Every structure is written in structure tokens, then in C-alpha cells.
């Protein structure tokens, strides 16, 4: 019995990859994607949330806790987007390297110009994020700053490869500058859209279009019939260019409104990998702008 157990134990230990690089745990796919651009083959990235999963409604699964246990650095979106599961992962992972205050705890939102901070907020207003709108991964101007923060954090943790990470950031920045020229050509200025959820405000600010209404009556609260009526009426007057939604929620409601108003539904990828042709963060932005055009 003891022998079997020992054999099993050794087998399990042996099965764990003998990998020298840094273990990076990213909560969201875009974070994993940017981290991979900076860390390349010197890091292994484990992403906790799936591309088509609603990032607001994630449960801390044991597999996530195990990933946290092995992490050298935990990279997360911040602004309370992960409030429902990350505190639990942090505690259950029993890993002092990734707790707040340690270099292995990397809050991406620290490098971001936050929009939509609320000074007076309570939950009668729905699922509002008091620290500000957390969906900043749609804004290239923020991601370049996050990427640099990541390169510095990785360089701090893995001094031997510090130059490697910084060089990778330089090529990331060069790629970013080049793509940004393309992105700026997307002529979205003056366009008006309806959004299902308050998800695309950074995108609108970055590319100069306007979100003129939301299908949800309040963030995270499904639309009431009266609100939908009102929205349809206002859309007849304002004639927006589309209803923006994502694959994981709001399709049905948006399509119903589309049928009544003739305004087309545009399904955008919510995160990297949520659609074909969005394999990394650059192609994710490419795809969004292509769909909005």
C-alpha cells in the first residue's frame, strides 16, 4: 500500500514539467496574450478565464487555485473586475509569492488612465465598478503602458533575462506604433452605437465614436420591457450605426431590437481569442475595427 502510494507520488512529481522559466498566471486572455509577447519562451502562461466567458461571473475553480499555487507572478485586470473569485484564489493558493504587496502580484490597472470613476455610487445603480470602468483592454493607449509595466515586472523577477524582456517590449512598442497608424485610419469619428453592456466606452473614447444608449437598463441588470420600448423609440430618432454586443450575452435582446429598428447587430470579441482571427491582442483590435467599419 505504502509502496503504491510512494510510486504514485513520484510519478506525479515527475509528471510536473521541469521548466526553468517563470510561471505567469493571467486572469484574462488579453493579459496572457500581452504577457506572452513580452516573455516569449522564457515564461509559461496559464490563463484562468476563457475568452467567451463573462469576466464578471467567474467562479474560483480548484484548477485556478492550483495554477495560483504554482505561479511566480499573477497578472490581473484590477479595478474590482475579479472581485468575485480572485481574493479566494489568492488565499486558497497558499502562495506567498503572489499576495498583494509582493512583486509577483501584478495589477495591470496601475498603468492605466482609468475612465468612469464614480464618486457617489451604490448598488441601486446596478453592477457599477466604483473604481472605474475596468474594460480598458480595448484602448491601445493603455495596453502599451501595461506592456511596459509587465516587462519591468518580469525583469525584476527574472534578473538574468531582464534585457530579453525589455527588448521584447521594444519590439512590442514598435509593432504597436506601426499598427496604431493602421488603427487610426479606421474612420469611426462621429459614428453612434448602442451597446448591450457598458463594455466599449474605452473603445469609443479611443476611436472617437459615441455610445448613445445601452440595452441593459443598468449595468448587469437585464433590460426591462419599458426600457427596451424607450430605447427603440430613441433609436428611431437617433439612427445609430449598430448595436454592439458580445458572444456571451445580450445576443437575443440585441437581435430583437435590431428586428424592430433595422439597426444591425455587431458582435464584437469581448477578449482575445473570442473569435476567429483574434489570436493575439493586436489581431483582436484589428478585428474589432474591421467589424465596426
Amino acid at each position, binding site marked *: 500500500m505504502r509502496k503504491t502510494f510512494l510510486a504514485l507520488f513520484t510519478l506525479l512529481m515527475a509528471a510536473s514539467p521541469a521548466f526553468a522559466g517563470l510561471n505567469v498566471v493571467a486572469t484574462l486572455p488579453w493579459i496572457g496574450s500581452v504577457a506572452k509577447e513580452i516573455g516569449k519562451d522564457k515564461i509559461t502562461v496559464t490563463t484562468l478565464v476563457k475568452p467567451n466567458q463573462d469576466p464578471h461571473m467567474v467562479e474560483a475553480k480548484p484548477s485556478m487555485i492550483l495554477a495560483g499555487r504554482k505561479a511566480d507572478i499573477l497578472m490581473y485586470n484590477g479595478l474590482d473586475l475579479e472581485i468575485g473569485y480572485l481574493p479566494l484564489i489568492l*488565499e486558497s493558493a497558499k502562495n506567498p509569492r503572489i499576495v498583494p504587496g509582493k512583486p509577483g502580484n501584478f495589477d495591470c490597472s496601475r498603468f492605466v488612465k482609468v475612465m468612469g470613476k464614480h464618486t457617489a455610487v451604490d448598488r441601486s445603480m446596478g453592477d457599477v465598478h466604483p473604481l472605474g470602468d475596468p474594460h480598458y483592454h480595448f484602448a491601445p493607449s493603455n495596453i502599451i503602458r501595461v506592456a511596459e509595466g509587465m516587462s519591468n515586472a518580469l525583469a525584476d523577477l527574472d534578473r538574468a533575462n531582464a534585457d530579453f524582456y525589455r527588448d521584447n517590449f521594444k519590439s512590442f512598442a514598435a509593432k504597436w506604433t506601426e499598427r496604431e497608424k493602421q488603427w487610426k485610419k479606421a474612420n469611426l469619428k462621429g459614428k453612434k452605437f448602442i451597446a448591450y453592456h457598458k463594455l466599449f466606452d474605452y473603445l469609443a473614447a479611443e476611436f472617437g465614436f459615441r455610445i448613445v444608449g445601452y440595452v441593459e437598463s443598468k449595468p448587469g441588470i437585464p433590460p426591462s420591457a419599458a426600457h427596451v420600448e424607450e430605447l427603440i423609440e430613441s433609436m428611431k430618432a437617433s439612427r445609430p450605426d449598430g448595436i454592439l454586443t458580445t458572444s456571451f450575452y445580450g445576443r437575443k435582446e440585441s437581435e430583437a431590437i435590431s428586428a424592430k429598428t433595422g439597426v444591425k447587430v455587431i458582435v464584437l470579441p469581448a477578449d482575445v481569442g473570442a473569435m476567429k482571427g483574434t489570436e493575439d491582442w493586436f489581431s483582436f483590435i484589428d478585428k474589432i475595427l474591421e467589424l465596426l467599419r
Partner: protein
Amino acid sequence: MRRLRCLLGIAAFCSLGTAAFAQDTGERLNALENAVKSQAKTIEEQQKTIDELKEQINKQQAPQEQQAVQEPQPKGEDESLSAKVSGFFGGSVLSNPNISLVLDTFYQQSNLKSGELQNRGIPGFTTHGLDMHNGFNLREAEFFLFAPVDPYFNLYANLPIDDSGIHIEEAYAVTTSLPEGLQMKGGRFKSNFSRLDAQHPHAWDFFDIALPYRAFLGDEGLGGEDGVQLTWLPALPVYITFGGEVLQGDNDLMFGSDARSGPHAFTLFAKSSFEPTDNSTLYFGPSLLFGRTKNTNIVPDTEFTGHSALYGLEAVWKWKPSSQEGLTLQSEYLFLTQNGGLTGGDSLERRQDGFYLQGIYQLGRWRFGARYDMLELFADTFKRNGTQEDQGETPWRLTGAVELNLSEFTRIRLQYNHDRSGRDGRNNDQGILQFLFGIGAHAAHTF
């Protein structure tokens, strides 16, 4: 017609004008040409200067751009530090811990009278009745406080308030910086023995705890026990945690505060999990709870003194294809052995078991649940002085529930119990309409 004449007039005037200035045209054209030429030259020169300047700017900008990207880092951090008046758990800074309050209130109607419910124990298991009456009930308002103590500990306190006052259900510190996947917990806490035990009543999938728990441990399970816990999560390819606890043993059904002067309840458990498919998770593990027992709640009006051990097996399968849909199947099996003596000199030997199987299907904001509980599935030994005592029919219960979660903070549940655990041939048919409201800090969604 008038308009046409007018146009003709204008045309005539124009041609007249052109004729009048025709002589100068040659000179004027020359002058203009010269002017344009010299202007073009100036423009060309200016363009050159502009291009040169641009180049210079670009040259300067390249390092500047890098600086600009490097620069915001501390700037960005400062900015968000001042803006983010929050610890990791959200809420406000150092002066206040995170606080939440959950109100748990319900309306209950049974075919039995309130007095009958309160005296309805499970013969052969517990003399405790159901703590509720027909009509409006307030189960509790639960205060929950948590915050990091310092870089080494997090502190949690769970203080339910009910008709009998405020209680310290839980108040414990957890280590955050032990190495090698080790963690200590100390104070008063709910044991991680089996699955339902560590859950708070407002987090249960049904209004009430499963029958085996009520029969062996009480209607809130083992409850908050004073003691210490050590858990270990090794860095293996699969998720396995191991844990053990040393507890005082104050639970008045499984143990009893006077059973021994000193800690007299102990647990050992392991939990493992893997994901058979992308959308599903399996979670399972064995548990053991054992110690000394001395209380008057097993056999009416008689004190039992002896040793008890409760073996548990838990298994959960979760299928969650999206945030809008999910199915959870959960089952636990508990097996009790107990040996000792009763007041008056009789001996008591018990070997009894119980299990439940439940399923919860979630669709959008709705959850539909069904549960079947049963005691004495395989073992029904209850021997007094070596003689088996017949306690009556096999106790069982069937439950159905519908839940509406208006938001993450409001839950309305309608539940029906067909309860045959009284062993007296009578039904307890209960309808319960429960309201749960939470305010304050956001609690995590446990698996």
C-alpha cells in the same frame, strides 16, 4: 423669362469688363507668374525647413516616446494609488475592514403545528427539533468582517445576530505567507470536514442543511469550533489538498464541551479535483471527524459518554458551459460509529449512515433544485446493552426548490419539503418562501 434676361445681362457686363482690361492682361500675367514663382520658391524652402524640423522632431521623439512610455509608470501608479482608495478586496483603506450584512428571513407553513415542529427530532439520532414556527421568521442577520491584519495574516469574523443575541460563529486568522503551500488557521471557524460544513446557511443551495448533517451534527453542521487548522496544497499536476484540525469539541450533538477538559475533536481530510472536459469540473474527497462525546441530545433525558467517529465522502460534478447556464450534481455519504455508556449504566453502540443527492440547474437568473436525503441506508445499528432498538421507519426527505437571483445580492427561494424524518409515520409537508439580501463588501463565489 425674367431670370434668363437677367443672366444675359450679367454675361454681357462680364464680357464688357474683360474687354476693357484686355490690354493689361499680358503685363499682369507676367507679374503674377513672377509672384507665383517666387512664392513657390519660398514654399519650397519652407517645406525643406519643415521636413528638416520634422526629422529632428522624429529623432527626438523616438527616445522621447520610450521615455513617455517609461514615465507614466510611476505617474500612473501614483495616480491610481490616490484614486484607488481600496485594498485588494475592494472597499476603503486601512481605517475600515470590509463589512457586509446578510439578512436571512423566511415565511414557513407546515401541516404540523409550530410546537410539533420544535419538538420533532430524529429518534436514534438527535433530540433537537426544527427551530422555526409557522408564519414569518427571521433566521438571522449575519455580519461579516474581513481584512488583512498585516503581511502575515488575514482576519475574518462572522457574527450572526438572531433572537438570542449576537454570536461569534467564526472569528479566525489565516496565514498568508507560509511557504510550500502550507496554511494555518486559528481561532473559531467552521471545519472543512466534508462539504456542507464550511458553508454558511445563506450560501446553502437549499433553505436547510442535508438530513445526515442534521442527524449527526446539528442543523448548522458542526458549526464554529475553537481550534487550529493546518492545510497543505502541494504543487502537483493535479489539485489535491490535505488538511487536519484540532478542535475544542463544543458541538453539543457530536461532542460536548464537557467531554474532556481540553481539545477533544479532530479532523483529517483530503480534497481533489480535475476537469474531465473544458466545461466540467469534478471535485471529491474523504473526511474523518472523531473525538470524545458527552451530551444529552442523542437519547432523550439521558447522557451519553463515549467515543465517536464520523467518516465522510463528498463528490461534486459541475457543468458550466456559460455564465447563463449550469448544472451541479452533488452527493455526500456520512457514516457514524459511536461507542459508550448512558447514565444508568447501559452501554450504547451505534453504526449509522446517511446520504443525500442533489441537483441544481441554473438558467439565467433562475435556479431549480431537487434533493433526496436518507438515513440508515446500509447501517442502522443502535444497540442498547447489546440489543438492537427499533427506532421506527427509515428517515427520508424529498425537497424541491426554485430560486430567483435578481442580482448577486438578492435571492428569493421557494422550497417544498416532504419530510419523513420524524419516524412516527407522520409527514412534515413544508412550504418555505425565503428572502436573502446582502449589502456591503462583495463576497467571493466559492466553488
